[in-house]
């Protein structure tokens, strides 16, 4: 059974990685694969979004399948499907086994985390994505691990290419071009906070050296939710009289299910990994369907449950009491992807999974730190100096699992304003330095260009007259895509830059009377 489980886990992990790699443009406006499907099956995102936004994307009906599966079979999702669980398993296998591991008495912690997240979502704050295992995994892969792998592989092949050893370079270039076509990204991705997000992920992996599946046992809020749902499962473990209480099962257990305690077995902590069944020297353990209840209670403690709820509820005003709530204007650099809902609605839905940042064709979508407040950490924002919003691309809205970014058709997208460009006349070549330039106008993608020229004759220091075309921004036509800022040849601080003012999604963040 153990091998059967491992194969299943492997298949789901491979599927996950495949879909992750496919979360990339191939030049058309469709991806061809349901790349976000793991998130669609996530009941934690389903519930918290339902609580915080009072509506939920239809695709989340898929997560009811996981709920039903758990109600019937217990936490099989954790033991057999969850890609983070599988990775934790794999890392845990590297740990040197020293007899029976010490189990910490903290398994309840994840329930308190869950209660806290549910309570805050009831009060309209969506924080589940920070700790939801699938969001966390996709985010960590997108923003950190995948860029790191790309960087390493590319550096290696570039080094061989530059050294140019005879014959070897032909072989290495062949391998390199194969890798580029299969698993590497089209171009090296770069993200703000890459090391931070990656460091947190490595920490989670590292905890496996303390105890295998430390995350799943003590921290995972989705595991906790499934644990609660599994209380009524009919797939149950039974121990026959052959048991000698040797304790072999306890050291093989992937959860904190206390399999050696027979009647005290905790079904909510069982990942149905079947290890106890496989390892039992007397073949005394078996799993089967029965309605009989012979398990330990949850015993979360009423006070602690109430405290967790209070903490979740209090976190809402605690986090929201910022000057932002008074002014109503977020950081002007907070340029949301096209199709994003009004900021409050957006934050009630965004789970910071990083799908949009992964798929962004120019690498311009980056994780926010505090630009959208604490609750907006790792939510997407466009940083035009890094990359602009491609005029005819609508991929971010296609991969958003919760509808925080609406799916737009091309026509809607082309009209959607995400900000407005303004010119820094003190830095612009034709404005300040009597030097011709055209870049912002040339790349401006609207059919009637939002950047227009006023022909001017200026004098240089020697008194020579120079004809220059001085760019202006048509505030009615500019959609804030930021390509002008990306391509502006004034390096460092650009001479034309985009801020969020004028964004279609906001009634108040407007420059002009309308």
């Amino acid at each position, binding site marked *: 059974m153990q091998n059967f489980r491992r194969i299943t886990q492997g298949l789901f992990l491979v599927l996950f990685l495949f879909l992750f790699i496919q979360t990339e*443009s*191939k*030049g*058309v406006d469709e991806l061809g694969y349901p790349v976000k499907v793991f998130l669609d099956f996530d009941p934690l995102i389903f519930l918290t979004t339902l609580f915080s936004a009072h509506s939920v994307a239809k695709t989340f009906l898929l997560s009811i399948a996981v709920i039903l599966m758990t109600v019937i079979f217990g936490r099989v999702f954790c033991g057999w499907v969850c890609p983070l669980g599988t990775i934790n398993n794999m890392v845990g296998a590297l740990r040197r086994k020293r007899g029976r591991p010490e189990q910490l008495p903290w398994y309840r912690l994840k329930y308190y985390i869950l209660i806290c997240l549910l309570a805050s979502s009831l009060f309209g704050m969506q924080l589940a994505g920070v700790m939801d295992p699938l969001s966390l995994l996709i985010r960590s892969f997108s923003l950190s691990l995948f860029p790191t792998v790309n960087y390493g592989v590319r550096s290696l092949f*570039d080094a061989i*290419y*530059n050294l140019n050893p005879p014959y070897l370079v032909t072989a290495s270039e062949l391998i390199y071009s194969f890798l580029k076509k299969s698993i590497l990204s*089209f171009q090296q991705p770069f993200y703000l906070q890459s090391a931070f997000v990656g460091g947190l992920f490595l920490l989670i992996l590292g905890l496996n050296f303390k105890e295998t599946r430390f995350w799943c046992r003590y921290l995972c809020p989705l595991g906790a939710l499934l644990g609660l749902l599994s209380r009524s499962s009919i797939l149950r473990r039974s121990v026959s009289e052959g048991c000698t209480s040797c304790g072999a099962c306890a050291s093989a257990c992937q959860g904190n299910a206390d399999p050696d305690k027979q009647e005290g077995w905790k079904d909510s902590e069982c990942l149905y990994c079947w290890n106890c069944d496989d390892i039992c020297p007397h073949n005394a353990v078996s799993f089967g369907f029965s309605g009989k209840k012979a398990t330990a209670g949850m015993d979360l403690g009423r006070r602690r449950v109430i405290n967790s709820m209070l903490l979740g509820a209090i976190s809402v005003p605690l986090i929201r009491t910022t000057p932002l709530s008074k002014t109503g204007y977020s950081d002007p650099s907070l340029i949301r992807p096209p199709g994003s809902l009004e900021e409050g609605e957006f934050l009630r839905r965004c789970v910071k999974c990083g799908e949009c940042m992964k798929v962004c*064709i*120019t690498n311009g979508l980056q994780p926010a730190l505090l630009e959208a407040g604490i609750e907006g950490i790792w939510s997407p924002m466009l940083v035009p100096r890094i990359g602009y919003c*491609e*005029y*005819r*691309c609508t991929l971010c809205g296609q991969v958003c699992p919760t509808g925080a970014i609406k799916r737009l058709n091309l026509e809607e997208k082309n009209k959607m304003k995400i900000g407005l460009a303004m010119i820094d006349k003190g830095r612009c*070549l034709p404005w300040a330095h009597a*030097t*011709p*330039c*055209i*870049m912002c*106008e*040339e*790349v401006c*993608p*609207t*059919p*009637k*260009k939002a950047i227009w*020229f006023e022909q001017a004759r200026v004098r240089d220091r020697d008194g020579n007259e120079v004809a220059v*075309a001085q760019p202006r921004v048509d505030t009615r036509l500019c959609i804030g895509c930021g390509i002008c800022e990306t*391509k502006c*040849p004034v*390096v460092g601080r650009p001479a034309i830059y985009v801020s969020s003012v004028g964004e279609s999604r906001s009634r108040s963040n407007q420059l002009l009377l309308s």
Partner: protein
Amino acid sequence: MVPKDLLRLTNLADAAERPDIVVATGASPAAITKAAIDALGGIKSFVSRGDIVVVKPNMAWDRLPEQAANTNPEVVATVVRLCLEAGAKKVKVFDRSVNDPRRCYVQSGIPKAVSPLGADLFYMDDRKFKEKQIKGNALKSWPLYTEVFEADKVINVPIAKHHGLAKLTMSMKNWMGVMGGSRNQIHQKIDESLADLCLVIKPTLTILDAVRVLVANGPQGGNLADVRKLDTVVAGIDQVAIDSFGATLFGMKGSDLGYVRAADHMGIGRMDLSQVRIRKIKI
């Protein structure tokens, strides 16, 4: 270059009547492209068996063929097909695009048209831009794409369209697509820079696509109202003469374009069309 000169000597009488540039007009982009090349002596007077040929279209923008921002895919495909029929060992097709390369390539329709023919179409490799001595008036040296200089033959297949700064972009400006580095800085001295580029990039043949042209909001357009259908290609060796003629398609003269004047002045080609043998054919 020797074999081509020999070929020219043997066909001296023929060559005397051969036009400098051919302007072919007709409904089929493929037919006018082939006719224009044939009128110049056929593809075999440019491409030899075993040659590695670079065909450089404009695939710089995330636009569709009917929006006339990238070279017409049928024109490019015809050039590729003729090169392969002439025995070219390899025909390489690439461009350094302005928008995302994946989108520019796919949306231009060029990969779909040339890949089935056996062209080697690829995304440019950053490692292959190498600093090249130019010794021009504006550009002393610049990182340029090495494959252009390693190829046996280079065929320029630009599209004619409006440009906010250079007024029009045609053959000479198409070479911005093999420039590495921060090429957007050359706009500061656009005319001199474009002429300088032509000191080192000397195409075997140029085919200017004017099947559809953009008359405003270039070089990327996006509004079909700015597109005119001229059903024309202009072919020849002298890209200055071609650009000078190209200007007339837009109601301008070659001398209206700073880079054409500069290149003429530097002796790179001829701007004065009265000195150029032009053959016009209709199909």
